């Protein structure tokens, strides 16, 4: 009897004991480090790590333990890793996923399990609208944002007809929908290509025949590289300009596209020439640490870490013991984003400026320069569907 009471007391004592402040905050990062698209995950990881290294192994003054695992771009694998991180490693915060289909497989479950998730890239409409959750924050964008910006810009520039092109999968249809949400000119042609398609000769011939004023395309990864090179070789680029989101003009990709990308205008919420102190430090430190220019993805990984740092600082390193406080601290977004002004909307997605950039050559290296601002304090289209 006495032993039983003792045990119960001990249990109670354990429950009541606050996590010692010296315990590092555990951050689980699931991202793509091998196979196709691994360049993106590697940059997110390196950007995130840079923020930790800049603080000497802490975030917001609190020790953190970063657990990185490779999902190889497979939803089932990401799901397994997430289960392990939640059950065994007992992580406090998760981040890292690059692809929307993986995010949809992982995020709803982990946020229900009481883990915070900060997305450094994927922003599917489901998680911004009907499927939003109080523990889910997206520090990058809602997927449609950059496409909407291109639509707005192409309209503002007075192009009367546009040919639109995207892969035949959900994100491709979202991209075209996002573009059309703000572009009200004539759609000269709308083509959905096979995912992973290599050759775009047939589509380019269609564009030539349709004689549009502009071309909007969303072809992430290798598809975009192939398309831009082939479009350049077709000689159409002089008469029909290309427009697209930043993905095909990012630092990870430009080197492989070469001069075919020169002068193309693309949309992005970040660029290495955004003029603020945080961005200057980020670009310089990233170059020094990794010997290459940072990409959009690196900036998002970095911002994710800095957002978490700001929240840890505000709560004194508490995450699970006072989830409401940590959530409020995240929502406040009290950090210097490398893209300048940053705030969260009601659905925990960014309200931010979106720029148009032009691909230029600087010291022999292709990179982007901001030429215009497409949106000021832009909100996503799904915020009203979100009921938290």
């Amino acid at each position, binding site marked *: 009897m006495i032993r039983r009471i003792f045990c119960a007391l001990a249990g109670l004592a354990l429950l009541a004991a606050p996590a010692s402040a010296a315990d590092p905050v555990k951050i689980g990062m699931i991202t793509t480090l091998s*196979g196709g698209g691994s360049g993106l995950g*590697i940059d997110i990881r390196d950007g995130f790590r840079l923020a930790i290294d800049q603080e000497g192994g802490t975030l917001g003054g609190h020790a953190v333990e970063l657990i990185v695992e490779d999902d190889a771009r497979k939803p089932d694998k990401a799901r397994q890793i997430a289960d392990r991180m939640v059950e065994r490693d007992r992580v406090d915060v998760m981040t890292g996923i690059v692809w929307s289909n993986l995010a949809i497989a992982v995020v709803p479950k982990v946020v229900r399990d009481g883990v915070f998730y900060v997305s450094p890239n994927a922003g599917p409409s489901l998680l911004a609208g009907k499927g939003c959750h109080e523990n889910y924050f997206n520090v990058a964008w809602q997927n449609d944002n950059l496409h909407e910006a291109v639509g707005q810009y192409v309209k503002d520039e007075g192009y009367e007809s546009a040919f639109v092109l995207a892969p035949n999968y959900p994100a491709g249809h979202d991209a075209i929908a996002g573009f059309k949400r703000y572009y009200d000119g004539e759609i000269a042609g*709308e083509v959905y290509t*096979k995912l992973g398609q290599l050759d775009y*000769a047939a589509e380019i011939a269609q564009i030539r025949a349709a004689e549009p004023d502009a071309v909007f395309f969303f072809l992430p990864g*290798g598809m975009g590289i192939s398309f831009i*090179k082939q479009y350049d070789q077709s000689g159409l680029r002089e008469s029909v300009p290309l427009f697209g989101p930043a993905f095909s003009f990012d630092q990870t990709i430009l080197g*492989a596209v070469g001069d075919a990308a020169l002068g193309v205008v693309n949309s992005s919420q970040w660029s290495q020439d955004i003029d603020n102190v945080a961005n200057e430090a980020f670009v310089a430190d990233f170059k020094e640490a990794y010997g290459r220019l940072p990409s959009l993805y690196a900036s998002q990984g970095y911002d994710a870490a800095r957002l978490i740092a700001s929240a840890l600082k505000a709560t004194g390193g508490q995450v699970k013991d006072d989830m409401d406080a940590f959530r409020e601290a995240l929502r406040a977004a009290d950090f210097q984003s490398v893209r300048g002004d940053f705030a969260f909307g009601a659905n925990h997605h960014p309200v931010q400026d979106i720029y148009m950039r032009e691909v230029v050559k600087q010291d022999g290296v292709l990179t982007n320069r901001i030429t215009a601002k497409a949106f000021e304090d832009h909100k996503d289209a799904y915020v009203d569907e979100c009921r938290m």
Partner: protein
Amino acid sequence: MLLILEQTLNGLQLGVMLFLMAAGLTLICGIMSFINLAHGSLYMVGAYVAATVAQATGSFLLGVCAALPAAGLVAMALEWSALGRLYDRDHLDQVLATFGLILFFNELVKIVWGAQPIFLDTPAWLSGSVEIVPGVPYSTYRLAIIVVGLAVALGLYLLIARTRVGMLIRAGASNRRMVSALGVDIKRLYTLIFGLGAMLAALAGVMAGPIYAVQVGMGENILILAFVVIVVGGIGSVRGALVAALLVGLVDTLGRAFLPTLLQLAFDPATANGVGASLASMTIYIFMAAILAWRPQGLFPAHG
């Protein structure tokens, strides 16, 4: 009308590219009865070596000259160290082992060249376009691909039909034991075929470099199409591979180009676009199924 002509050329060009890839695959598959999923890795190695050399020297031709022997050497080393042991095993073992090699090569390329895609430019003397008929400019580089591919087809035909090595290859395909009983070193012959196939794959990779993305895993996409080609053409038949590659290239390109437009005659534009896009990505598989229903051995079966 001009559009149809241009799209037909596009289809031919894609077909020729597929042929370069499929020719080696069909030789290895049909004659050595070996399923080599790592064929796409050799394509990738070719593109990477060519890109590196071309960037260092500024010459595309030097890149080609470096890539072909490099891929040949890699293939022969591979054959000697790993694949040679698998010839007598069943197909499942071969598929598993060569699938492992795909992963191995992808990681190796990532370690050597990094995860980011790299750049291979069109040689200056092949950039730009020519007007094949007035009003239809066509990329010079794509025309060059067609020429190179057809030249390779001719060369392969001469090699297999007219030379002693070709005779041995054909004999080895029909009866391996008998050939070795006659004093021919069949192992060396296989190594030779494997190297030849690898060089063809590397050539395809080099030719693809300036128009497609040079990146880790670039071989897998085209490998699937190459398998469709050799199955349609009849496994082991180079002639079959040529005809099937051109057919697959044409069916794919024309399907993509005209199906959505044709469907618009029957449906409203939104439905036509959606259905057309889905159907277009299926056309070559439907085509393959139709051919196989009609001729289960493929168009030109290699063995009687």
